[in-house]
């Protein structure tokens, strides 16, 4: 028997559907635009991106958010493809988080 993918939640029981809208944050819009460019430029393709999300551990997936999953999946994929260096990325992310500002970019 084939295990279900973590993303394959159609038909599962679940609670109430959230009715409240939530506006996209500015960085989320930037992120979608940057990811669109990665596809347009042929750096990544949709199916390999989807695969990185499907490979997420079940518990991680269950607790993840829509934009968080996209970001983590893309980072994993870019590291896997050698576009990003994992250590360089981690260091940069820590520096930005420690600074707590948006000024450096």
């Amino acid at each position, binding site marked *: 028997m084939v295990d279900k*993918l973590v*993303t*394959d*939640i*159609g*038909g*599962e*029981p*679940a*609670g*109430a*559907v*959230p*009715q*409240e*809208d*939530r*506006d*996209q*944050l*500015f*960085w989320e*819009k*930037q*992120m*979608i*635009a*940057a990811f*669109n*460019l*990665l596809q347009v*430029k042929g*750096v990544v393709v*949709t*199916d390999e991106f*989807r695969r990185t*999300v499907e490979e997420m551990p079940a518990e991680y997936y269950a607790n993840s958010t*829509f*934009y*968080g999953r996209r*970001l983590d999946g*893309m*980072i994993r994929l*870019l590291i896997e493809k050698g*576009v*990003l260096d994992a250590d*360089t*990325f981690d260091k*940069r*992310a820590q*520096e*930005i*988080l420690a600074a*707590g*500002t*948006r000024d*450096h*970019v």
Partner: protein
Amino acid sequence: MNGDEHNHDHDHDDHAPTREDDDLELTEGEARFLALKSLLIEQGVMTADEIRARMEFNERGSPHQAARMIARAWVDPAYKERMLSDTKAAAAELGIEATEAALVTIENTPKRHNMVVCTLCSCYPRSLLGEPPAFYVSKAYRSRAVREPRKVLREFGVDIPDAVDIAVHDSNADLRYVIMPMRPAGTEGLSEDDLAALITRDSVVGCALPVEPA
């Protein structure tokens, strides 16, 4: 024609990417994205200008685009046929560039109501509707829409009579759906722009009915 004027309940300017969220504390997610963005720019994978231009392009995708198409279809049977047979070409006729791999329009009828979900992720006709709403990407909607659509619709305040079938369409990255709601009664005298104002985002996903004319 009213020219640029449109009376939608969704205000495009509110969503324009014109500012940083300076009033919000920097989260780990945003910091990680900013790190990714700065490295992609430093490494020459993309430029800041390209990101800005793509954000502006993405802002063109809004529910107004789908509303324009459906309103045209309501008044022009030949256009309606073209939209049902080739949605991307029908979008192009109205100057809308649809970047989706494939778009299919499904028409609601007195006997069948249609709704859209993407159970696996969040595939959505962004060129015609903008970014998907929170409910559409929620795990609850993705899980339940295919199992108990009538109940889900009731949570949205939409009561579909038992005599009307409900068909649920599961989107994927290669095929995305647009629902064409039925034109409400009492709209015979309305202009195309006024008709477009009745067509909400959620009605194009099949989670609402068009607004009743005043």
